[in-house]
């Protein structure tokens, strides 16, 4: 089978995957690797020594959350001692935004790809401000996590199940027609998410104040749906992974130090190089000097054909690409240069409902020297400060070249 035939199969599997949000579960129940003292993190594999500030902060926070240590100092000592195992979320069907740290007792969304049967997971979104995913671990951060885990989680779980599951692909398709691109802008999708769950939350046995708080939290947080969206994208991308001979990217992820990709036809190998600093807009009081290198698994959205790839659908956030709607169109048009297919469910109104560019082809990236665009939040380089801006970043071209060379070796192309 040649690369094009293999890629056709990959793309059909990716697009044909139908990710349904089934429930919320405790991570250790659904991710066997988390039955041990282990933390999952965003991006390709990394050890404590090379971890950036926000990732270390999130590790400390998760260690405290799990009760493996009682204070930050002890947590840091434990984490640096080798007593905690670190593995990428991606190795266990999971994805997490920014630091992406997922610990055994955290609640996770469970997505099932109804077409191919694979599962994917993502933790719950904490909203803005001081949050674990940006490396914050102050008591109020952990308090919020506990509230999400113990109060909100069970209510939302019941609501999801009562709704018979939520079709996240359909939700995304609609959100793209409402100005979202699914990565940096999830305002419409989050409102749809809250709206779909609200009737079932209203039926919950919790008291009125709690029900109100949950609905308010989901509705106020314009990123509520990001985590189920990421898990849905993971489920779609994983459906396309492992096709012999395929040159399409099935994972892009950053751990705050390295940017890594995986390729459908190249097994479980990661191809990595140092992550760049995003270019973008900064919140007042911050500048590029405060920015951590690119971090997070949220690039799974671009991998699946949305995010920066669907920028043309999101004119409201064109400030990230300089401010003119034409630039948003150009951003998406450029991504068609490096993708193998067009999504049949994710369509873009300003491009005459053309399907979004889907399936990054390492051949095209290397040939044209055009790397994928990524819309991203920007983390402060120090643990716990939080988000300092948002903008655009591209992975280093070297990782695609490495992948191409590995492909040549594996498939005997000299």
């Amino acid at each position: 089978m040649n690369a094009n035939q293999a890629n056709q199969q990959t793309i059909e599997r990716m697009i044909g995957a139908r990710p349904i949000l089934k429930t919320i579960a405790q991570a250790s129940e659904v991710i066997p690797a988390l039955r041990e003292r282990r933390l999952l993190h965003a991006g390709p594999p990394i050890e404590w020594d090379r971890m950036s500030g926000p990732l270390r902060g999130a590790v400390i926070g998760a260690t405290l959350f799990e009760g493996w240590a009682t204070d930050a100092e002890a947590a840091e000592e434990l984490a640096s001692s080798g007593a905690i195992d670190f593995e990428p979320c991606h190795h266990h069907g999971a994805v997490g935004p920014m630091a992406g740290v997922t610990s055994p007792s955290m609640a996770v969304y469970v997505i099932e790809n109804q077409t191919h049967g694979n599962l994917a997971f993502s933790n719950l979104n904490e909203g803005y401000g001081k949050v674990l995913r940006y490396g914050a671990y102050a008591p109020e951060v952990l308090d919020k996590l506990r509230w999400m885990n113990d109060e909100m989680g069970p209510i939302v779980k019941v609501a999801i199940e009562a709704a018979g599951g939520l079709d996240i692909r359909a939700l995304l398709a609609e959100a793209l027609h409402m100005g979202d691109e699914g990565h940096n802008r999830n305002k419409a999708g989050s409102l749809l998410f809250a709206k779909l769950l609200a009737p079932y939350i209203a039926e919950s046995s919790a008291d009125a104040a709690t029900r109100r708080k949950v609905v308010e939290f989901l509705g106020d947080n314009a990123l509520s749906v990001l985590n189920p969206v990421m898990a849905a994208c993971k489920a779609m991308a994983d459906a396309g992974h492992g096709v012999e001979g395929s040159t399409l990217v099935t994972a892009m992820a950053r751990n705050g130090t390295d940017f890594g990709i995986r390729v459908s036809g190249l097994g479980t190998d990661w191809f990595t190089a140092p992550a760049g600093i995003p270019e973008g807009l900064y919140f007042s009081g911050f500048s590029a000097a405060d920015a951590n290198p690119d971090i997070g698994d949220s690039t799974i959205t671009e991998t699946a054909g949305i995010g920066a790839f669907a920028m043309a659908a999101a004119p409201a956030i064109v400030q990230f690409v300089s401010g003119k709607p034409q630039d948003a169109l150009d951003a998406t048009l450029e991504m068609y240069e490096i993708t193998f297919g067009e999504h049949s469910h994710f369509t873009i109104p300003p491009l005459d409902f053309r399907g979004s560019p889907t399936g990054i082809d390492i051949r095209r990236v290397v040939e044209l020297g055009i790397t994928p665009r990524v819309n991203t939040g920007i983390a402060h380089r120090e643990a716990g400060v939080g988000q300092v801006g948002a903008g655009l970043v591209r992975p280093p071209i070297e990782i695609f070249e490495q992948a191409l060379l590995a492909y040549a070796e594996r498939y005997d192309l000299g």
Partner: protein
Amino acid sequence: MSTIAHEIRRGAYADSIVLMQLQSSLAQLEGVDDAGVVMATEVNLELLAASRLLPEALSGVGPDDLLIVVRAESDDAAAAALAEIDRLMSRDAGSLGFSGSGTAAFRPKSLRTALDGSPQARWVLVSVPGRYAAQVAREAIRADRHVFLYSDNVTIDQEVELKREARERGLLVMGPDCGTATIGGVGLGFANRVQPGAIGIVAASGTGLQSVASRIDALGAGISQAIGTGGRDLSQAVAGATTLQALDLLAYDPATRVIVLISKPPAPEVAAGVLAAARATRKPVVVSLSGTAPPLEKLSNLWFAQSLEGAADRAVELLGLQPTASHVSPAQPGDAPKDSPKASPRASNTGFVRGLFSGGTVALEVTQALRFLVAPLASNLGVDGVADASIEASIGHTILDLGADEFTVGRPHPMIDSDLRQRRISQEASDPSTRVILLDLVLGDGAHPNPAGELAQVIRAAVEGPGAGSGARSDAGSCERSGVEVAVVVIGTDKDPQNLDGQVEQLQQAGAAVFRTIGGLVEFVADRFVGAVSPLPSRLELEDFDSISCINVGLEHFHDSLAAQEVGVVHVEWRPPAGGNERLQAILAKMG
């Protein structure tokens, strides 16, 4: 009796306007009574039921599922309607956001994207560095586009391959190293602004093309199409691939009434085919073989020019003589095939000319004239570009001066004693590869008193062929097949002692064609050997040359020039593949 059929698309979200459109399109299909396209919410299912569109035994659908229902006259009509869904839902492929006009600012980064996004652009201008040029041109050809290949340093093997593939697909490759062309009034590359008109140009030389076009414009005439071929097109390897296609195009282009063909000195074996194609156009063709003495001044519809300027002058003059209403000028009697512009029934590429001359200068002139008309040509006259003939036996087309030293050692000159010539005529006639024998007959004082009488018998034997004596082949029509044709140029006056008319009559009675000029003799040959044109595998589409729009890969300058001419043009921001890394390029090439 109506039937209801449905299809469920699970999790397929579409905006309600899209659904309504699909519903309306389905309802309009033949045999369809009504259609419903809804997200399967409870409310919508009730609405379907109210419209008698709710399928029986519908279960397991929910609000995320797209339900498409048709009520039709028959099961077949219903099935046919459902089969149309994808087509009806597909977006209009006309605009992908960079049509080359309007608000579109996006510049594609790859030819592939430009090709996909600009189906109307039938031309691709390629001016990338030579080592990448063939690859870019090939991609364009495989996407069914004509190519203007400005780049140089394309290998001749690549050129042959590109042109072969293009010809098979009915596409034109101008170049490589093609600097200029004017297609549909649009200047490509470096082009003069010339007024539109009725003269078509085919040129292997860029400056040649520009000189002729400019001169034509200065003389008040204009250009229909000016097609560059690239400097190597008339080489043996490339074999005039582009030139032949261009001549064929101009032959049936109604706007072209006169053609100018500008060549660098062509490979002789290629020249014959090209001149044949020029004759087959049945339009006046002015031929300029730069750097070479023309073989003759005129050959049926071909005029040979001494210079570029002369070519332009002649073309304009011929245009003045052309009827303006008709695009096909009647061919002159006996000159060119009438039945088809593609091939003469009489001309074919089989058999050879054998010239057996007694006059050295006559033989020389015939050799020079035939140099670009037949191939392979050999002679014993030492003409540039013509092989030395073997004295003992002829191979290929051969012109011999039998008065040359190697034939006259120990015997009289053939003008006096025709014994050698008679024996050679017999020898050639018995060679099955001989098709035409050319002779001269020189009269005057001092020459043989009855030279025609000397040759008449051997000529008749040659014409009638070996089977004639047995009576087995008495049919006049088939005699020609078994014998050879003999043509004689008679040099002399009606005052010469041999009696000119009587000599001519004897030769004609023997079966020879008789001419009074060398030009007549050459035309006789050309009629037989120059005119067979092999049909092209696929013809060029005239409308592609009418009003053009382009994709430009390479020099931005060419994009700007086209935009200034108000031509639709998409510029590809091309960069060397893999940043110029050869190892990665090699891998990419293997991956396809």
